[in-house]
């Protein structure tokens, strides 16, 4: 097992900052780093200031928050559910959020806050439906976390089916809007959205980081967790709900961005991290870097066409993961 070195922290932060600066500087109108820094301070060409402050900076920050939220959420879920294939979207969050968004689209809600809110409500609703389903499946007993995982998958599958039915008869515009959203995109980033997501990530992520040691114990199994003084059922549900909220907030802000929540925690573990407090932080930093880099690629590689961000995260992340997998085994 690789030993995590403290020097990895400044390295992870530095990589994120460099990628973020490159992402702010590049796009349809390339800017130099000097112009970017001046624009950030409100100096120089007003067009450059507008591009940096109103377009690219919120977009990059949105990417940071989405990536951090998904990475941390995945790290918690894999530990708490003791499943290396667990990821935020598996729990019905994505399906529920998509139902919410599509519903908003088809009811004519085209303004951003409406769709964001509808997606968030849909994602959260799916989590609570999954909780209810898991309780029903438990014959009135305490449902264990595996039941919860299965319930999440079932709710997600149902939601996806509902979307297909809804889209089959929807107007082409609605279909296009919904599809774009389902492929994930940071293109509609606004400061309002950034602030809203930052608050959500801070609350749900902060609560999870606060309780991270409980997840270390939970990862040993429910009986062992109980013997170490953790109410396994409550702690597991709390981790489930908080990480699902975290994921729902990111989905509402930028649509479905696959792969990050699944693989980024494994990359962080590959660096030698096991305890969930540092693991969540590292997964957050790596996830943020990956999404910002992917978004940069999405808008520059085939410009002026924008590629779906959700696909790019996978295209960028898979090779990186494979290299690491080889080194690990």
């Amino acid at each position, binding site marked *: 097992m690789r030993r995590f070195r403290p020097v990895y922290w400044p390295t992870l932060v530095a990589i994120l900052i460099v990628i973020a600066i490159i992402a702010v500087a590049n796009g349809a109108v390339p800017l130099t780093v000097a112009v970017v820094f001046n624009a950030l301070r409100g100096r120089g060409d007003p067009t450059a200031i507008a591009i940096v402050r109103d377009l690219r900076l919120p977009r990059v920050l949105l990417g940071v928050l989405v990536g951090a939220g998904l990475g941390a959420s995945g790290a918690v879920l*894999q530990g708490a559910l*003791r499943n290396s294939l667990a990821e935020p979207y598996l729990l019905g969050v994505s399906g529920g959020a998509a139902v919410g968004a599509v519903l908003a689209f088809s009811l004519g809600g085209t303004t951003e806050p409406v769709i964001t809110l509808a997606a968030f409500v849909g994602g959260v609703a799916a989590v609570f439906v999954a909780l209810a389903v898991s309780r029903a499946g438990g014959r009135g007993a305490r449902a264990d976390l595996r039941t919860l995982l299965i319930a999440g998958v079932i709710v997600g599958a149902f939601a996806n089916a509902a979307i297909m039915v809804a889209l089959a008869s929807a107007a082409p515009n609605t279909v296009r809007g919904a599809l774009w959203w389902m492929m994930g995109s940071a293109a509609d980033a606004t400061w309002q959205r950034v602030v809203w997501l930052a608050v959500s990530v801070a609350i749900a992520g902060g609560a999870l980081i606060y309780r991270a*040691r409980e997840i270390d114990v939970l990862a*040993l199994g429910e009986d*062992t967790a*109980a013997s*170490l*003084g953790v109410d396994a059922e409550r702690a597991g549900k709390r981790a489930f709900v908080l990480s699902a909220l975290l994921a729902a907030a990111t989905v509402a802000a930028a649509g479905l961005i696959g792969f990050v929540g699944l693989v980024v925690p494994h990359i962080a573990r590959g660096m030698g991290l096991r305890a969930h407090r540092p693991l969540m932080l590292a997964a957050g930093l790596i996830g943020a870097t990956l999404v910002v880099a992917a978004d940069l690629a999405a808008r520059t590689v085939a410009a002026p066409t924008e590629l779906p961000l959700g696909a790019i995260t996978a295209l960028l992340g898979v090779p990186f993961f494979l290299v690491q997998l080889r080194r690990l085994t």
Partner: protein
Amino acid sequence: MIEVRNLVVRYPGASANAVDGVSFVSERGRLTALAGPNGSGKSSIVRALLRRAHIPQGSALVDGRDVQTLSYSDLATSIAVVPQREEPVFPIRVLDYVALGRYPHLGLWRAPGEEDRSAVEVALSQAGVSDLADRATDTLSGGEWQRVRIARALAQRAPALILDEPTTFLDVAHEMSIFELLSSLSRSGLAVLLVSHQLNLVARFADRIVLLHHGRIAVSGSPADVMTAERLEAIYGWPIVVTRDPAIGAPALVPLRRPFQLQTAHPTNERR
């Protein structure tokens, strides 16, 4: 000290009680064994002590306090448990794993201090796994892993230790060394409650055996009291001969082969 009084455990939807009015005491300085056929309620008693099973009647007490009224963290400083199964999904360094035994003392935020570090060190050495501290859990053999798990429980520094089938899948030498370890831990003052199928080993090491059958105590007492052929035959539903362990004279059980005849002569291949 662990005490269960008229304990009843019932699982939702089950037609019968898994544990049906069991009472016994596991005292400090003694190795108490909980034995009995599969499904006789051994693990359910452990689950009840961990507050992971519903107790409609009776009580499970740790140092005189009812587990139902204890907080989870108080419970964890009173009893340490090595559950039947446990496998970390993500391999972890042995030292970090054993250090998780300090969670009941550290809680969510307190940084480990000198006392915690020394508890982990002593636990590793008591369990004889100090040299494994830097290994990852997925590189350990079955015997090493069981010892590491015992070290994790010892790091809790609880006065009572409960183990559920700690020697399953282990070879003779590893099995013996775990029993020797448990015996020395009990002599050092811990209340050790051991759930085990290994009647022969239990008979040699335990101070007291509680033999369960269908959720009730069939018999309990010293190994010599409990290990009689008639009783064991009735409980296990299989012909059994009880002889003496040649070294220390403890009762030793020999289940018979079919056809169920006591064979005094040398076994031959002609049977069938």
